[in-house]
C-alpha cells in the first residue's frame, strides 16, 4: 500500500542525502520530484501543489539553520513527515459512541467501493471490542446485496436485520428506521446501516441517502472510498459531503498497489479524517487509521507501533504471563509452549501482513517475497506438533526414529520435515537457556521455524540470580542432594 509513492519519496530523499551541502536549488528539485510522485499517485492537483508549496516554504525557511547542523537531509525529512501527517488528518480519530445507545453508524459511498464488505469488518471489529453490533441491510438496490450482507454477517457471527429481500423491492428508509428500533429493543449498542452505492451526481439516490440519514439520525456517517479512485475522488467526496454529509472516511482495497493518493486529497479537501482502512478480503483485514503511522509507511519507515499492538492483542495476558513465569522459574521452553505461541500468532493475522509492517519491508524484492509468503507453513508446523504425544512435546529428546515416523504419518508430513522442526526447536531451546543464564543472544531469537519467527511473548527476565534447576547435576547423589536442598 502506498508503495510506489514510498519508492518515489525514497528517491527524492536519496538524491538529497547524496548532496554534501543542501542548497535552495536542491530543495526545489526535491519538491519537483515530490510533486510528480504525488500526481502519479492520483493526488488532486490542488492538494499536491499546496503540499509541495508548504514543504518548500518550510524547508527554505529552515535552510539557514540547517547549514550548521550535520544532518540536513534528516531535518528536511522531518518536515516532509510532519506535513504528511497533517495532510492525512493530524491526530487519529475514533468512532464517537452515542450517550444513549445504540450508536448508529451509516455507510455511504459509490458502487463497488466495498461498503458491504466493510460493514461486515466493522461489525467484526466492534464484536472483538466487546460490543454487540447489529447490521442493517438497507441496500435494496443492487441484486443480492442483502444476501451478501447476510453471508458476511454470518461469517462475522453478528446478527443482521434484513426484513426485505432487496433487488429493487422495498423501502430502504423504513428498513433503516426499523433496524434502529429493533436494535434499541434488543439492546444492541451499535447499529451499522449498509446503504446502496450511489453516484455523487445522482440527485434521486442522494436524496434517498439523505432520507435514510434523517430517519435514523446517525452518530457517524462513514464515507467508504476505493483507494484506487482517481482524480474524481475529490468531486465525488465533495458531492457526498454536500449531499448527505459524512464524519469520517474508510479506505478500502489498500492491499493492492494503489498509491492511495486520492485518499490524501479527500482527507485534505473535505477536512474529514480517514478513520479505517481495509486491506484484504477476510474479516480481519481491517485496521484503524493512524495518520502518523501511515506517514511512516509512505516514507518507508515501517509501522512498528501497529506491529507491537497486534502482538499484544494476540498474546492475551494469560499466555504471556504463563510463559514469563515459566521462563523465570527456569523451566524449559517446550513444544507445548511453542504450540501456544503459534496459535497466538495465527490470531494476529497473516504473517505477510505482519512482516510487511517492518521497516524496509516495502522494498521490491522483500515485497515479492511477502506476497508469496506461504501461510500454510504455520499450519503444517502446527500439525506436526499436534501429532506428538504430550510427553513428546515436553521432552523432545525421546523422539527416536520410530516416533518420528509415527509423527510424520500422523501429520501427513515427511520425516525430514519433522527432523528439521525438532532441530530448529532444540537450537531455539538452547538459545533460551543462554538468554536465561544472562548470556548474550547470538543473533535474534528467530530460530523457531524458518517462517515462524517468534513475535514477542518472551521477555528477558530480570538479571538477578534465579535458581537454575536445570543446571548441571552432580553425579554424586549425596552432593546432588546438597545442591538441591
Amino acid at each position, binding site marked *: 500500500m502506498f508503495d510506489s509513492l514510498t519508492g518515489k519519496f525514497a528517491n527524492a530523499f536519496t538524491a538529497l542525502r547524496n548532496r554534501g551541502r543542501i542548497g535552495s536549488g536542491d530543495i526545489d528539485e526535491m519538491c519537483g520530484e515530490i510533486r510528480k510522485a504525488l*500526481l502519479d499517485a492520483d493526488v488532486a*492537483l490542488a492538494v499536491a501543489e499546496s503540499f509541495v508549496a508548504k514543504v518548500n516554504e518550510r524547508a527554505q525557511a529552515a535552510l539557514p539553520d540547517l547549514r550548521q547542523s550535520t544532518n540536513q537531509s534528516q531535518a528536511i525529512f522531518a518536515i516532509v513527515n510532519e506535513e504528511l501527517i497533517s495532510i492525512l488528518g493530524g491526530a487519529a480519530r475514533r468512532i464517537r459512541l452515542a450517550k444513549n445507545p445504540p450508536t448508529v453508524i451509516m455507510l455511504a459511498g459509490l458502487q*463497488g467501493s466495498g461498503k458491504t464488505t466493510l460493514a461486515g469488518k466493522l461489525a467484526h471489529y466492534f464484536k472483538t471490542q466487546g460490543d454487540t453490533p447489529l447490521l442493517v441491510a438497507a441496500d435494496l438496490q443492487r441484486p*443480492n446485496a442483502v444476501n451478501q450482507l447476510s453471508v458476511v454477517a454470518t*461469517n462475522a457471527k453478528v446478527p443482521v436485520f434484513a426484513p426485505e429481500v432487496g433487488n429493487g423491492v422495498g423501502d430502504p428508509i423504513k428498513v433503516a428506521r426499523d433496524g434502529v428500533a429493533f436494535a434499541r429493543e434488543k439492546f444492541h449498542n451499535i447499529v451499522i446501516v449498509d446503504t446502496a452505492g450511489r*453516484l455523487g451526481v445522482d440527485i434521486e439516490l442522494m436524496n434517498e441517502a439523505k432520507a435514510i440519514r434523517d430517519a435514523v439520525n446517525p452518530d457517524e456517517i462513514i464515507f467508504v472510498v476505493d483507494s*484506487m*479512485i482517481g*482524480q474524481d475522488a475529490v468531486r465525488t467526496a465533495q458531492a457526498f459531503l454536500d449531499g448527505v454529509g459524512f464524519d469520517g472516511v474508510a479506505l478500502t482495497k489498500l*492491499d493492492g498497489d494503489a498509491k492511495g493518493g486520492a485518499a490524501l486529497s479527500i482527507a485534505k479537501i473535505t477536512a474529514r479524517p480517514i478513520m479505517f482502512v481495509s486491506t484484504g478480503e477476510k474479516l480481519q483485514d481491517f485496521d484503524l487509521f493512524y495518520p502518523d503511522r501511515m506517514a511512516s509507511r509512505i516514507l518507508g519507515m515501517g509501522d512498528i507501533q501497529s506491529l507491537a499492538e497486534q502482538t499484544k492483542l494476540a498474546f492475551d495476558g494469560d499466555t504471556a504471563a504463563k510463559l514469563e513465569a515459566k521462563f523465570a522459574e527456569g523451566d524449559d521452553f517446550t513444544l507445548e509452549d511453542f504450540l501456544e505461541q503459534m496459535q497466538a500468532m495465527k490470531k494476529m493475522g497473516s504473517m505477510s501482513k505482519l512482516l510487511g509492517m517492518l521497516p524496509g519491508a516495502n522494498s521490491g524484492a522483500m515485497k515479492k517475497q511477502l506476497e508469496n509468503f506461504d501461510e500454510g507453513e504455520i499450519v503444517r508446523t502446527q500439525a506436526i506438533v499436534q501429532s506428538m504425544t504430550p510427553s513428546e512435546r515436553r521432552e523432545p529428546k525421546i523422539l527416536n526414529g520410530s516416533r518420528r515416523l509415527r509423527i510424520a504419518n500422523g501429520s501427513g508430513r515427511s520425516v525430514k520435515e519433522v527432523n528439521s522442526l525438532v532441530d530448529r526447536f532444540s537450537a531455539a531451546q538452547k538459545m533460551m537457556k543462554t538468554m536465561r543464564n544472562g548470556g548474550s543472544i547470538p543473533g535474534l531469537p528467530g530460530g523457531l521455524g524458518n517462517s515462524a519467527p517468534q513475535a514477542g511473548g518472551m521477555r528477558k527476565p530480570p538479571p538477578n540470580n534465579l535458581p537454575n534447576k536445570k543446571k548441571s547435576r552432580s553425579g554424586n547423589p549425596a552432593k546432588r542432594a546438597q545442591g538441591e536442598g
Partner: protein
Amino acid sequence: MSLFKKLLAKITGTNASAGELQDLETILIEADLGSDVTKKIIDDAKSRKDDNFLDSVKATLTNSLSTKSRDIAFDAQQPTVLLIVGVNGTGKTTSAAKLANYLKNENKKVLIAAADTFRAAAVAQIQTWGERIGIPVISGNDGADPAAVAFDAAKCAIAEKFDYLIIDTAGRLHTKDNLMAELEKVKRVVEKVIPVSEILFVLDGTTGQNGLAQAQIFNESVGLTGLIVTKLDGSAKGGIAIATEAALDLPIKFIGTGETLADFSRFDSAKYLEDLTSL
C-alpha cells in the same frame, strides 16, 4: 464523454499561450489521463504551433487510440467464449449481465457461467440478473472451483449449441499472484474444450492511475482482448481508459453508463472524437 468541454470553452484561438497550456495540463491530469499521455499531448501541441491547436490535441488522441476492431468476436462454428475479468468492485457481474442482454438483443443464444464463487452471494447476484433478462445461468456452490464451473458451462454451451458463453469471474487484485494463477487456470481449463475468443477487462471509470497497472498485469497473465469501461455516468471523465487503451493497445469495446440493462453501449471512437471537438 465530453472530456474537453472546459478546455474548449477556454481556448478559442489557434495558438495556446503558456497559461493556456497550464490549463490544458490541469484538465488532462484531472481527467485521469496520467502524466505520460498528458505530456505527449502538451508536447505535440507545443511543437505544432502554426496549426490549429485543437486539431493538434485531436490528432494526438486519435493517434494514441487503438486501431484494433471494437467488435465482439463471433464464431459461427462453435460457441464464442467471453471471459470477464477485473479487480474487485469494478462492475464485472453487472457488465456480464448487460453484455448478455446486448447479445440476446442481437438474436444470439447466450449462456452465462457464474464463476465468481468467492464473493458472498455473487452467484445469486448473477442468477437474479439471468432471471431478469431470461438467460440461463450455470453455477456452482459458493466456494466451488471456478475453473470447474467454467468447464461445465463450456461443455454445456457446446452440447446445447449456444452462440455465446459469458464467464463472469471473481474480482481479484492484480497484486495477488495466487488469484492471478487461478484465473489462468480458468482460461486453461476452458480451452481444453473450446478456445476463449475474448478476455474483456472491466475497468472502473473512476479509477486513477492504478487502472493501467491493473490492466497491464491482467494482460501479462491471461492476454486481454479489450476493455469494458464502467461507471461513466458519474462525474469521472474516465481518462484512465484512454490512457490504458493507448498504453496497451487494447480497444475499449463497451461502456457502462448506469444501473439498468440499457445503460450499456458500444464504444464509438469516431463519435467520441466528435464529442471532443463539439462545444
